[in-house]
């Protein structure tokens, strides 16, 4: 661990508590509210911020718009937009920019009213258009759920993975969600029918949305947002909360290739880069914050990050291994309740950083005692076709 560089740390976090703003707040308002609370958490002020990171979903001038809206004149503006993985990319870029001395305090923000807008993210058509690839397959009606389901189908075919094994991911996540009052409130506000801990039988008995993925293997569609403040080492030492260091990061793209393997994601590239920079191994990780758009997303990424070999994920996640109260048994998964059971406003990558920081501060509702190392892995776009992967390794003092 001696070679690790500790040049940037998460010092402030905030997750917007409500998942249903009933149309009364805009995404920009949610971003500003979260930014203010995260800066308070850090013991910093708006005027301390000199770098902003935003996924640019506000449009082509997003970098300017967000600076003006907040009332900032930042020295660094980064609007890398790669869907749900944007925030892992932003954390990686903030670490790079702070280490280079281009800025001292970086602000990452996210806000969305996907629920209030009644966006049919999962079962709507393909988003976008305009890219030639979309012009080839929009006729076929591949919903987003079906896109991920095709990864699961092939994983089952190649490796004998079962729906019961995939369900373990939903069960562990819900187990954590039930311990998180904000997640329970989210499920109430979004009118989940049955708000309780679930079993494998519950998951595989729920309605099929796109074979082989069942309803309880699909994330919710909520409102929400969050903010993360990242500071250079000299600033971080004087902040209100203990620093959560960014130890390593990796980025990657994945897209369909003739003859390619759909069961291996871009995480197989971003993971080794991040672990290598951090100088740690997957078996040292206490907390795995993995983008759980669907059960199969987590299974695939756990394998690709090297927690187990490709194809062994089904057996590896079985028996409740991913629960927070199984120390020594591998990492705890998505201890906030994840996108499956707490918060999914469309791009949940920022919540992966936030809950990882909570765990390394000792503030989680499902706290792993003595947690030292966490991985946050965002997947943006669509796992079964074109997607981006951002991996960040985090550690405490």
């Amino acid at each position, binding site marked *: 661990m001696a070679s690790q560089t500790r040049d940037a740390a998460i010092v402030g976090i905030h997750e917007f508590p409500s998942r249903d703003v009933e149309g009364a707040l805009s995404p920009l308002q949610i971003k500003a509210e979260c930014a203010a609370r995260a800066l308070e958490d850090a013991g910093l002020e708006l005027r301390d911020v000199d770098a902003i990171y935003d996924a640019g979903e506000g449009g082509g001038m997003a970098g300017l718009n967000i600076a003006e809206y907040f009332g900032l004149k930042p020295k660094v503006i980064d609007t890398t937009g790669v869907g749900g993985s944007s925030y892992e990319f932003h954390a990686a870029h903030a670490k790079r920019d702070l280490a280079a001395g281009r800025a001292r305090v970086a602000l990452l923000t996210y806000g969305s009213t996907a629920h209030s807008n009644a966006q*049919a993210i999962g*079962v*709507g*058509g393909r988003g976008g*258009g305009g890219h*030639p*690839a979309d*012009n*080839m*397959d*929009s*006729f*076929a*009606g*591949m*919903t987003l*759920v*079906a*896109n991920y*389901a*095709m*990864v699961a*189908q*092939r994983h089952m*075919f190649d490796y004998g993975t079962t729906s019961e094994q995939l369900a373990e991911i939903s069960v562990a996540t819900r187990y954590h969600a039930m311990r998180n009052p904000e997640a329970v409130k989210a499920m109430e506000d979004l009118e989940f029918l049955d708000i309780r801990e679930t079993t494998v039988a519950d998951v595989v008995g729920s*309605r*099929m*949305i*796109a*074979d*082989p*993925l069942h309803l309880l293997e699909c994330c919710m569609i909520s409102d929400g947002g969050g903010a993360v403040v990242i500071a250079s080492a000299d600033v971080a030492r004087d902040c209100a909360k203990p620093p959560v260091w960014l130890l390593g990061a990796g980025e990657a793209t994945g897209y*369909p*290739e*003739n*003859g*390619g393997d*759909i069961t291996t994601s871009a995480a197989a590239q971003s993971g080794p880069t991040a672990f290598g920079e951090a100088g740690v191994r997957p078996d040292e990780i206490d907390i795995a914050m993995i983008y759980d758009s669907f059960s199969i997303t987590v299974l695939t990424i756990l394998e690709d990050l090297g927690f187990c070999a490709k194809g062994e994920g089904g057996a590896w996640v079985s028996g409740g291994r991913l629960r927070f109260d199984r120390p020594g048994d591998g990492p705890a998964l998505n201890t906030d309740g994840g996108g499956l059971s707490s918060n999914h406003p469309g791009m949940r990558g920022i919540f992966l950083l936030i809950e990882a920081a909570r765990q390394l501060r000792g503030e989680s509702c499902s706290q792993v005692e003595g947690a030292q190392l966490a991985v946050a892995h965002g997947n943006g776009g669509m796992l*079964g076709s074109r997607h981006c992967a951002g991996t960040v390794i985090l550690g405490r003092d």
Partner: protein
Amino acid sequence: MADPTRPLPNLRDLDTQAFWQATKDKRLTYQQCADCGTVVFYPRRHCTGCFGSNLAWKESAGKGTVYTYSIVRQSYHPFFRSMAPYAVAWIDLDEGPRLVSNVVGVEDPASVRIGMRVKVRWEEHEALCVPLFEPA
């Protein structure tokens, strides 16, 4: 109200328009680099293997294998909601291209399998045909 219709490709897209124009004659085409042999699909103006521009159009025999699939049971799109449940699949053509389509001509979409041999079945529209697949 008219029955909802299948969303169709944009024939003005400059990368893919030659592919779609060929479907009017029920020809399933793809590109191959004359310099390095790379099969390029979806169509582009350059080779994704060597970045050259010496691409030749080839015609597929329209036969292939289901690489993976899903059965869509819920969609908010009016046309696809009326079609559900239906099978969407990645098809590996024998010549190399992998493409997305629907597997049709099966009594129950649940009978679709990975590895199933399929052949193209054209669905006719005014300005083009859509390549669907059925058991071979």
